[in-house]
């Protein structure tokens, strides 16, 4: 712990060294490290963490970032609910999830730190850089709160490193509340030896819409923080990087969705603002027009999908992006797109529900609503990417499936993927990923609107502009000519054809790969962004000799084949999901009335295997340590290996 008074700001680094004040600096070399930056809402810890994460990824570290989001728009400062920030997990190798506890925290005050402590966000022995002003504050109440907080957090071997965050920031800017985040970034940059040029570039990019002086002030703060750390801290952390054999890019999942849509050749994103989906359209709004693409902000969620349906019907496959409440409003149009066989891509960035729920926080609660939300039988495709890279790539896949099978395709991401930043191999873009302009050649007079192949259920799409293809698409039950059907067999046949093409599509899917041994005591099944945490937990348990494996589903409807056969090789099968299920040991909960995880319901129905579930709805991603504990407690023979 260092208590050295900060050197005067004007004293240059070289002078310091020249005067022989060089301290002994201990460098901790680790394969991975988890950092948190946490401040009051509005003090900018999120931006600090985002830039730190991005620079780390650019320098070649594996990274995964997760936003820590305050409970309210403007919560009172110096209170636990005000905690806002970012967790950045750094690794030498690729990082697939946010990990368990933080190894190092930069806390702007002790109350936001306390919040993270109470949520078990900090590892035993965690290093805590905390603004030194509170401990010795002139206000007695604040000193008391500080002492109480430290008392509450005692017994965890936390190592406190007070640092003059606000005091030093105030020497550079008039209002240190807006700026100390960059001082903190400078301190972190020194500890982790981050590339300052890249950091300065990212600061400039992040303030590009503001006056030049703002960027300059923020860069000055960064430099001051770096300098202060260099003169005062006695430890550094080194997370070595390994050179990557392939070029990589780094971005969050919403950016990846936007880029993926462009790579897929789509040129209309029709949306209505909703958290946490909106940032995808912010990103697209900046760049889409270069590609001839439009972000259409519709008057409401319903119109947003309506415009996308219109564009798709007219031959230009569009996509819409939303989150739970918006998905509920879009339901009728999704059914219509199924009925009229209009290709369409619908991205649902899931958040906590029901109702307004947890607007900024993660949940995997929309699975059943996505598949079964539409009245009647409305077969369509539901898929779920597990990483930022998959967010990028799945958009091309989704568009192609939509066009080949004349069907809406839903892509379920979540708040974790949307805001988390991860590096991944740079996609090798291909022209064939893109939609081709619709071929409007004439079709023979009398060509039927739904010339269903009786084996496949598929049919050629007739697009306005094609001579001879005139027909009226209708949401009413219809025959091959799109004529409204009045006989019972017309409806039966239409349902059968729309279902059949999905069965055919399912036959094109591959059996999922099992992570770990092909058979064993326990198989975990997950979907979406839980992939990395589940595999890490499985690896930990396997290293201890437990016979546990996992698999992650990307296609939820129709589902990837061969599951029953895989399940038969394990004594027990359990889903791991971020949605609600009853704890079987709770009062009144029986096997009959237990609410289960959403994938769990599907797997039970699909395979008739007695699939169990372990689910949580904390409004944050699952931690590998939690899943590891769940594995231990669900081993069929107790937790013995």
């Amino acid at each position, binding site marked *: 712990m260092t208590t050295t008074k900060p050197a005067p700001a004007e004293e240059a680094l070289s002078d310091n060294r020249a005067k022989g004040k060089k301290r002994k600096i201990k460098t901790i070399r680790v394969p991975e490290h988890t950092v948190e930056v946490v401040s009051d809402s509005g003090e900018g810890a999120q931006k600090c963490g985002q830039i730190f994460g991005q620079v780390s990824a650019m320098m070649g570290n594996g990274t995964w970032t997760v936003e820590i989001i305050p409970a309210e728009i403007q919560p009172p400062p110096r209170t636990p609910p005000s905690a806002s920030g970012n967790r950045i997990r750094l690794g030498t190798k690729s990082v697939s999830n946010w990990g368990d506890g933080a190894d190092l925290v930069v806390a702007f005050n002790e109350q936001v730190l306390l919040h993270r402590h109470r949520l078990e966000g900090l590892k035993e022995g965690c290093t805590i850089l905390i603004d030194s002003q509170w401990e010795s504050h002139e206000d007695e109440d604040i000193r008391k709160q500080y002492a109480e907080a430290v008392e509450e957090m005692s017994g965890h071997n936390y190592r406190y490193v007070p640092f003059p965050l606000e005091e030093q920031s105030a020497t550079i800017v008039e209002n240190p509340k807006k700026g100390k985040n960059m001082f903190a970034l400078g301190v972190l940059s020194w500890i982790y030896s981050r590339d300052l040029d890249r950091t300065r570039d990212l600061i400039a990019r992040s303030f590009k819409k503001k006056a030049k002086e703002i960027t300059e002030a923020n860069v000055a703060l960064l430099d001051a923080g770096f300098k202060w750390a260099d003169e005062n801290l006695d430890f550094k952390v080194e997370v070595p990087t390994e050179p990557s054999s392939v070029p990589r890019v780094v971005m969050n999942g919403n950016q990846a969705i936007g880029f993926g849509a462009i790579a897929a050749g789509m040129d209309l994103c029709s949306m209505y603002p909703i958290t946490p989906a909106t940032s995808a359209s912010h990103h697209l709004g900046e760049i889409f027009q270069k590609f001839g693409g439009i972000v*259409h902000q519709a008057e409401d969620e319903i119109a947003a999908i309506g415009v996308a349906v219109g564009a798709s019907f007219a031959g230009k496959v569009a996509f819409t992006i939303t989150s739970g409440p918006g998905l509920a409003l879009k339901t009728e149009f999704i059914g219509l797109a199924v009925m009229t066989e209009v290709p369409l891509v619908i991205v649902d960035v899931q958040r906590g529900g029901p109702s307004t729920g947890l607007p900024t926080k993660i949940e995997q609660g929309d699975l059943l609503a996505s598949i079964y939300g539409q009245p009647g039988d409305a077969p369509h495709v539901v898929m779920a990417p597990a990483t930022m890279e998959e967010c990028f790539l799945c958009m091309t896949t989704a568009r192609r499936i939509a066009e080949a099978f004349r069907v809406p395709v839903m892509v379920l991401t979540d708040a974790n993927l949307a805001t988390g930043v991860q590096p991944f191999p740079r996609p090798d873009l291909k022209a064939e990923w893109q939609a081709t302009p619709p071929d409007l050649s004439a079709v023979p007079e009398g060509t039927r609107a739904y010339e269903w192949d009786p084996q496949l259920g598929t049919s050629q799409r007739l697009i306005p502009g*094609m001579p*001879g293809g005139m027909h009226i698409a209708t949401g009413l039950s219809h025959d091959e000519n799109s004529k409204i059907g009045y006989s019972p067999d017309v409806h039966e046949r239409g349902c059968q054809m729309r279902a059949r093409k999905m069965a055919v599509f399912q036959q094109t899917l591959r059996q999922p790969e099992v992570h770990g041994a092909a058979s064993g005591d326990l198989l975990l099944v997950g979907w979406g962004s839980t992939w990395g945490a589940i595999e890490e937990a499985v690896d930990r348990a396997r290293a201890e000799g437990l016979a546990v494996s996992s698999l992650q589903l990307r296609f939820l409807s129709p589902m990837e084949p061969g599951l029953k056969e895989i399940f038969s090789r394990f004594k027990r099968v359990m889903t791991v999901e971020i949605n609600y299920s009853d704890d079987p040991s709770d009062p009144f909960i029986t096997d009959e009335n237990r609410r289960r995880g959403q994938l769990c319901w599907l797997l039970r129905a699909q395979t008739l295997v007695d699939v169990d579930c372990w689910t949580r709805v904390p409004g944050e991603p699952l931690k590998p340590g939690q899943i590891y504990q769940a594995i231990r407690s669900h081993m069929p023979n107790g937790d013995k290996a």
Partner: protein
Amino acid sequence: MIDTSCSLLGCSVDEDDRYLSMADYEGAVARWCSGCGDHAVLTAVQRLLEGEQLAPEKTVFVSGIGCSSRFPHYLKTYGFHGLHGRALPVATGVKLRRPDLHVFAVMGDGDCTSIGAAHWIHTIRYNPNMVALMLDNGVYGLTKNQTSPTSPQGFPSNTQPFGAHLMPMNPISTTLGVTNASYVAQTGDWVPDHLYETIAKGFRHKGFAFIRVLQRCPQYTTAVFEEAVRNPDMIELMVHPDGINVPELEQVYKNHVYHDPADLDAGRSLAEPHGKIRLGLFYQNESLPRYEEVRQLPSHTAEEKIELLNAELDRYAV
């Protein structure tokens, strides 16, 4: 007509030498009740299609749900018969990505002014170049006689058997109140030439042509315009060289008001109820921006897009 505006189509249909008769635009046999105003609108539209010789494959009729929304089925063009209240977003999507197509939206009064009201207001503001027909019979007919926002006060229906509780909504003044209203007209099913001229002028208008067609429902609102049909004194024609001009009709309906459709304030004042039914063009302004043009961008080939996207990805490179 040759469309030059379409960036999408390398294959725009060559100017063809087809001559299309009204029969060439006929779809299924119309199944509306005899005496329904929808028949008159369908005939007027078929006349327009023939008169303009619109290529059926380049014409799209989008509708919602209701009696009037069966309209596209009775034409031989492309059509999209979608959801209750949601014709306009679909039509906007078609026009936005395919400005080369002729787009018509057909709605009923419940469709447009009730469940679809948000889309009605906002589509006026988007001002896409299309014709929107609001077939207003003042009642929900398909679902058997429920009150609509335009049902006259006191009109008994199955949902308000002791008479409609509220004053009816005025769709014309509502439309005229929205930013970017560019063509606002009212006509009736019993004046076929006026109906035709109103739709034809709306089709030629560059922007969102909102046309309210007053009509009876022979089942439920027979009395609504009965007096107006019988008694010419109930009608007042708005006349102007730039308006809807049907000289023969001006002989039948002696009440005229000279109204320049460029005058929005006067149009708004004429839209207010005053005891007579006003037919004609309340407002027209072709200088307002059309959404599909506002949002039009140069298109790129797949290779160009890859190059551009790689340049973007460079900014995210590790």
